[in-house]
């Protein structure tokens, strides 16, 4: 049972909320309160657009405990439009080919359950190939 940890990370996981540095305007994800670019204090919340592209990726067949139900799945380093590179699962890929540079967008999905079927459900960000807009 890791309820407090999941609860603390909710805003970051559900809404892709990180921080923006008030000194150098760098966008920071995940939140760390200190700017990795200029070293200044950075506690201003910033909501990312959720748009980005695949920086690199790999498909997992042997997966960590708790993720077995979803195997196999693809994990990517996603470079967000605002700068940071984050690790996340890709979803809804289907037969589409994933490549470095594939444009992706954030969706909120069920990541796993905490423990067994009695545990809390953990939701968070994944990325999918951008839906075609008319």
């Amino acid at each position: 049972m890791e309820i407090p940890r999941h609860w603390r990370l909710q805003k970051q996981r559900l809404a892709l909320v990180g921080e923006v540095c008030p000194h150098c305007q760098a966008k920071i994800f995940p939140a760390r309160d200190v700017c990795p670019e200029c070293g200044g204090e950075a506690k201003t919340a910033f909501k990312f657009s959720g748009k980005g592209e695949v920086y690199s990726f790999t498909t997992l067949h042997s997966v960590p405990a708790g993720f077995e139900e979803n195997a196999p799945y693809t994990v990517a380093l996603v470079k967000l439009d605002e700068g940071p590179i984050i690790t996340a699962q890709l979803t809804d890929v289907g037969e589409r080919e994933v490549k470095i540079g594939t444009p992706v967008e954030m969706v909120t999905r069920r990541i796993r359950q905490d423990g067994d079927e009695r545990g809390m459900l953990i939701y968070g960000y994944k990325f999918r190939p951008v839906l075609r807009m008319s």
Partner: protein
Amino acid sequence: MNDRENLLLKPARAVGIVGYGVYIPQYRLPASEILRIWAGDEGGAPVKEKAVPGLDEDTITISIEAARNALARAGIDAQKLRAVWVGSESHPYVVKPSSTVVAEAIGASEHIQAADLEFACKAGTEAVVAAMALVGSKMGDYALAIGADTAQGKPGDALEFTAAAGGAAFVIGPAENALATIAASYSYVTDTPDFWRRQHQVYPEHGQRFTGEPAYFKHVTAAAQTMLSQLGTTAADYAFAVFHQPNTKFPQRVARELGFSKEQIETGLLSPVIGNTYAGASLVGLTAVLDIAKPGDRILVVSYGSGAGSDAFDMRVTDLIEERRNKAPLTQQYIERRIEIDYATYARYRGKIVMK
């Protein structure tokens, strides 16, 4: 019933749909697959195929994407919402609200009303009525009403053809900022045991042919006829009509009996290609209509929830539709985003394989 009695719900302040959004999962199970497994490839089916949620999708994730689409069209900050209501019969938790997860994910304020509603397939439209009341009474300017489901169908049962996944979200707000105004709603409910799912049961039970005449047809007809007679309108006044769609035939027949043409209902009749999205069904149909409707078009929407009841709405599209509809994916785009799966994959995705 006295025709002169005022049975319509009309808000004190005029309200309407400020933004709408839809979500339909990409997987499709063709009815032919169910016939292959359970009927030796024999017999007919009530739909062509149905939408199936992926392994990481449920009513909460469907609601979140539909809500984000609705907010994108509304063009308002989620902080302006005064309520988030989610209607569904497949809330992921039995106890713990879906609505608070949705509210947090879309960035709504903490100073809001949030609750889950349950009334079989009409929980979503009931949320719309509640949102109309909240905005119409000026207790708040905007409210989010969602109908979404990942419906359960017992393997081999008639409902397995249709029990599908999808949802729609509506930002209800003042009429002057609406892409479609809602003049009134009217609801008709009785205690009718046509379909239910008891506590701890995985699959619902239904009354076979009892789900037709005394259930769906009686309530949808009563709600629609009362709405029309009290407004003094006829079927000819509406450009579009959307009826709850548990299959293909029921909405077609009720539309015909009420005097609506095939052309008036075909845009909003999606059950043949996505199945019955339960609390989402009539509302997802409405999103498809709003995707193509023109300013001035009048729309009749009638939901149906087993148990049983119907909510009817009289809507009129405004000039704001043109600038807002392309701010989020259209319903047909989600329908065209289609990956066909076989029964085995369906069984895995829907958790029908015993693992321990």
